[in-house]
């Protein structure tokens, strides 16, 4: 197999998960790369929606550097504003939320607002929900990208920004008044996670070739559900890497970033 970086593995795995004939609501960075890769390979009829207001753009000026980048509006089929993008989502037209965060718990609740105990004086303040909270609430399924580290896979998030399955009770999302069915996949550079239908707890699905379930459990604060048979994560081929490096992120804006320690 060819050599690949963590970021390339995450983008490739994200692409693999996205099905054709769906709409993916993308956040900045790796979600855009993953969706572009999917469009160029197995999902030519997959489209992106961007929260600033564009649906199904043709990104022929290159990859947008942010979801508000004017390039994300290029040759769109529908171009309005934030209300329109999120209302299509509330209505049920956005199949996937593709988001990141600073912390995630076993029920797929994500923090991207702050760290520390006190809302009024956080020890670290992040930019905030942005679109993520609304995407996790109302896209049909949520895909999260996280770095696999104990301090990020936590027992309890400091601030619940993007709703997952809450406390895990079966009616949590319904009581919250949200529409989407909730967390679907969590992508890291070393493992792919899903959620157990009965307990709504995070479940290990695939590991990077060479790693064991224990390797992954050691990097997670809560207890993972580990199925008897564990699949290996598929690795990107030469062609996948060529698309990612030479076509999608030519200037290496996202692929050359390191997974932050």
């Amino acid at each position, binding site marked *: 197999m060819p050599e690949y970086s963590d970021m390339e593995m995450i983008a490739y795995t994200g692409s693999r998960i996205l099905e054709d004939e769906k709409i993916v609501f993308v956040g*900045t*960075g790796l979600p855009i790369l993953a969706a572009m890769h999917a469009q160029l390979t197995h999902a030519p009829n997959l489209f992106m929606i961007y*929260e*600033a*207001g564009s649906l199904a753009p043709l990104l022929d*000026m290159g990859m947008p*550097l*942010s*979801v*508000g*980048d*004017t*390039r994300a*509006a*290029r040759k769109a089929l529908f*171009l309005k*504003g*934030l*209300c*329109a993008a*999120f209302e299509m*989502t*509330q209505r049920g037209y956005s199949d996937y939320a593709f988001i990141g965060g600073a912390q995630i*718990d076993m029920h797929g*609740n994500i923090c991207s*607002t702050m760290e520390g*105990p*006190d*809302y*009024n*004086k*956080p*020890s*670290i*303040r*992040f*930019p*905030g*929900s*942005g*679109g993520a*909270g*609304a995407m996790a*609430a*109302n896209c049909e399924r949520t895909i999260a990208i996280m770095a696999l580290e104990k301090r990020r896979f936590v027992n*309890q*998030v*400091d*601030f*619940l*920004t993007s*709703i997952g399955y*809450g*406390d895990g009770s079966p009616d*949590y999302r319904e*009581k*919250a*008044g*949200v529409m989407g069915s909730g967390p679907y996949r969590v992508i890291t550079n070393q493992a792919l996670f899903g959620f157990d239908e009965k307990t709504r707890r995070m479940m290990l699905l695939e590991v990077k070739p060479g790693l064991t379930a224990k390797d992954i459990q050691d990097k997670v604060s809560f207890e993972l559900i580990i199925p008897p048979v564990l699949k290996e994560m598929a690795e990107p081929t030469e062609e996948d890497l060529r698309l990612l490096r030479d076509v999608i992120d030519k200037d290496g*804006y996202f692929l050359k970033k390191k997974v932050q320690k």
Partner: protein
Amino acid sequence: MLNTVSSKIKEVSKLKYKEKPFEYWGPTPDESRKIVVNKSHGLRDKRTTLKEAVAKYVKNGMNLGIGGFVNTRVPVAAVHEIIRKGVTDLTISMQSNSICTELLAGAMIVDPDRVSIKRVEMAWWGYEIIGIAPLFRYLTTNGIIEVDDYTNYGMSVRFKAAAMGIPFIPIRDHGGSDMELVNRGKMIECPFTKKNIYVVPACHPDLGIVNATASDMYGNARLFGALCTCPEIAMASNHTLLTTEQIIPTDSIRKYPNLTEIPYPAVDAVVEQPFASYPGACYGHYWFDMEHIKYFRSLGDEFRKTGNKEPLEKYYQEYVFGCETFDDYLDKIGYKTLKHLRKMDEGQPIII
């Protein structure tokens, strides 16, 4: 009668917060309606300068609604003039911003007697690919400003509710997240379905600042590229200060009235200002200047990390206080840079 209910979210995270009684952070719906009713609704030539418009509409303690989205079609020229004039006890309302809010925050650090932010109702404050917003982090982690957190849709729809003339709007997010606990929305039981539904209050800024792609002299404005939440902010605000990349004839507006995204009654001042979003982008005109944004961000980051505010002070002396107008600032940026950014836009199609 609407029943306030709970989605019982309190045990999920570690969050500690103080419950606060609801209060408006700007004009109430009734106050805002009264101001709008009492304006002239005729066609008036509203062209003016930023200096005059800012002197007239910017008041201490006001709620300032900021248009655009992150670095797209952001009203930077208006922000520069607001800093030059000075404003204290500001409440900022917006969905997502980078350079506009960091410029205001930097001005506060440089001279809190001239500019001060009291609180911000928002969804997101950062620089995306370039990094976190250092001055936002400084102000929040030191407890200097109060934040009211919503999602991007939450803030957008709060402006939309205000634009619709209704006091609140039901929305399918925030529920079950900690935003339900800390922000000023409420979970209620839907009077029809009897299920839980979150409602957020309308947001009426005292002044909305928006940069348009094109407008006539009356304020009929066209927006190309993403609309962001600009039409809603203009309609929601008591007053709207519109900068426009260019003034176009009303004949053209009348020829394609469907393209008018902001109607003239919602605009109080029209200022023709090319590159008004620089160093942000304006679809059809110019791309964003990553180098300049990185440079300004680095000064804020240095202050956050070392406490040294001298480089920030120098920036404001050079680019804000050392300039009489935004054109003077653009002169300092230079023709070659602006020409390059125009080229980077690749002539995205607009109808003028």
